[in-house]
């Protein structure tokens, strides 16, 4: 099973963990489900679902303003989840943790709230060719609206952002924002962000880290990363849909205009004067995704009980195994870095067969993979394809699923032979 040596005593047991996930109790097309699309969204453990149900059944009310006990319990549930999220990313304070719908909304919050008030002509926003649309289009849009330049760092042969472009960029522009992902959802690359973060801070630019794909798979530490903002999505890390979080440095958040406005985010409202509330409430207008936050907290408990280091090791192991097995399939092109540098994501193409057709025929064999541009059209453009196939893994993924994928690919080839 590949050549990654891990102490078996500390390895996670994916076969055992699968029992926590009700989704695996059914068959698809008469076969067990090989779910290889966790990078799009993860499946949910019972423990997380139960935490949400318990909240709804015993502790539900609108939060923060109620004096009665149910409201106090609900508030405690939400704020406990905030503390769990803070600890998960090692943020200095819960005041800096803002609950939103997903990473996309978190990135938009920064683009709008910071960008609309700090970007202008002559300024530049720098992203990479590897960005997910959610860390690309908001910057493109707000930069354009403000008359600032939107620059894309192209990637080199090895798929990494080509840093040799930085010098010229710094010469010609006032760089105000550098925004990149920590783990690529298309290639699986785990980036070394240190040089870019240092460069950004030399330029007095803010560094925005899209950690949507990193959070499920590795220990995050906003202080060690030294970023200014960081975005995550709950649904990719065993949490429910409808919840994500933005972390930002308190000084920055404090000095920013709010984004969404309305109930809860104010300290007082009059027709002629309105005052914003304290952090984090200033950025949380309207009724919060309360049960979803509780679910995210429970998901974090679940992941931490297993251990993020073990999850990461498990994924490296699966990536190595998958790269090996897929490499045997005739006509395959594999994209991305070596197994040690990647999270559990493997993108590939079969010569002459469109990914939609590959995925369709795999589905008929109980294998679920993603086929498409993975919200990375600039990267697809660079690779010279419209789409790729992508198999992605998580803590519950077992090597048998990868075997099922490889077998399935032979069947695909037969159809198109």
């Amino acid at each position: 099973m590949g050549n990654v040596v891990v102490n078996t005593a500390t390895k996670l047991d994916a076969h055992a963990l699968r029992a926590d996930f009700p989704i695996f109790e059914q068959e698809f097309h008469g076969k067990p489900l090989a779910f290889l699309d966790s990078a799009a969204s993860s499946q949910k453990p019972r423990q997380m679902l139960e935490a949400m149900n318990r909240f709804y059944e015993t502790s539900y009310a609108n939060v923060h303003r109620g004096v009665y006990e149910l409201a106090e319990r609900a508030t405690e549930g939400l704020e406990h989840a905030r503390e769990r999220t803070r600890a998960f990313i090692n943020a200095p304070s819960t005041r800096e943790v803002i609950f939103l719908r997903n990473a996309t909304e978190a990135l938009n919050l920064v683009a709008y709230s910071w960008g609309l008030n700090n970007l202008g002509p002559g300024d530049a926003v720098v992203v990479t060719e590897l960005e997910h649309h959610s860390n690309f289009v908001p910057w493109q849009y707000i930069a354009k609206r403000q008359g600032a330049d939107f620059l894309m760092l192209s990637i080199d042969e090895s798929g990494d952002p080509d840093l040799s472009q930085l010098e010229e960029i710094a010469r010609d522009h006032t760089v105000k924002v550098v925004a990149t992902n920590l783990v690529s959802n298309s290639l699986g690359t785990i980036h070394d962000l240190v040089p870019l973060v240092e460069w950004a801070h030399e330029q007095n630019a803010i560094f925005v880290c899209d950690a949507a794909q990193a959070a499920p798979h590795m220990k995050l530490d906003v202080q060690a990363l030294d970023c200014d903002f960081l975005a995550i999505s709950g649904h990719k890390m065993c949490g429910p849909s409808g919840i994500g979080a933005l972390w930002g440095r308190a000084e920055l958040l404090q000095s920013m205009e709010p984004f969404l406005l309305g109930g809860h985010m104010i300290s007082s409202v009059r027709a002629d004067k309105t005052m914003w509330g304290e952090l984090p409430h200033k950025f949380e207008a309207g009724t919060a995704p309360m049960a979803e936050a509780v679910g995210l907290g429970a998901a974090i408990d679940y992941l931490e009980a297993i251990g993020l280091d073990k999850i990461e090791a498990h994924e490296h192991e699966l990536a190595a195994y998958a790269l090996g097995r897929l490499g045997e399939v005739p006509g395959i092109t594999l994209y991305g870095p070596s197994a040690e540098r990647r999270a559990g994501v493997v993108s590939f193409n079969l010569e002459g067969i469109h990914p939609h057709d590959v995925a369709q025929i795999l589905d008929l064999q109980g294998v679920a993979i993603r086929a498409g541009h993975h919200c990375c059209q600039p990267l697809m453009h660079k690779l010279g394809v419209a789409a790729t196939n992508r198999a992605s893994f998580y803590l519950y993924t077992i090597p048998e699923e990868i075997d099922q994928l490889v077998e399935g690919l032979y069947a695909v080839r037969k159809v198109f032979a």
Partner: protein
Amino acid sequence: MSGAFDQMYREVILDHYKNPRGHGTIEDPDAEADGQNPLCGDEVSIYVAFADDGETIAEVKFSGRGCAISQAATSMLMEMSVGRTATEVATMEKEELLEEIAIPLTPVRLKCAMLGLTTLKVALHKAKGTPLPEGLAGFDELELT
């Protein structure tokens, strides 16, 4: 199970995919449009030349890439459109094309199968100056440069 593959990837689909009819471009076409399938990034361009009556479709071609379903459906559409009037084709019911394709399609794959027809309709409506029907309008949405 291989029965399921056979149903969806039946011989005629694979044939149209491997030997698409009407693949190519037309210089100075009378009608033309580009379409995208936002789900997979596939793109298709369609070119139409009218006969002298300015209404009958004399020639129609497509270029671009796509999955077997979208390529085969577009290829079949090319054959179905030649000799018919622009108005007829611009108002063609999708069921007519689906009968021709004659395979079971899930909603996502339906988008693949419809890419060519939608794009052809947009081309014809634009050429004739008729308003795009609901659901097609999205294809010439706002741009940002």
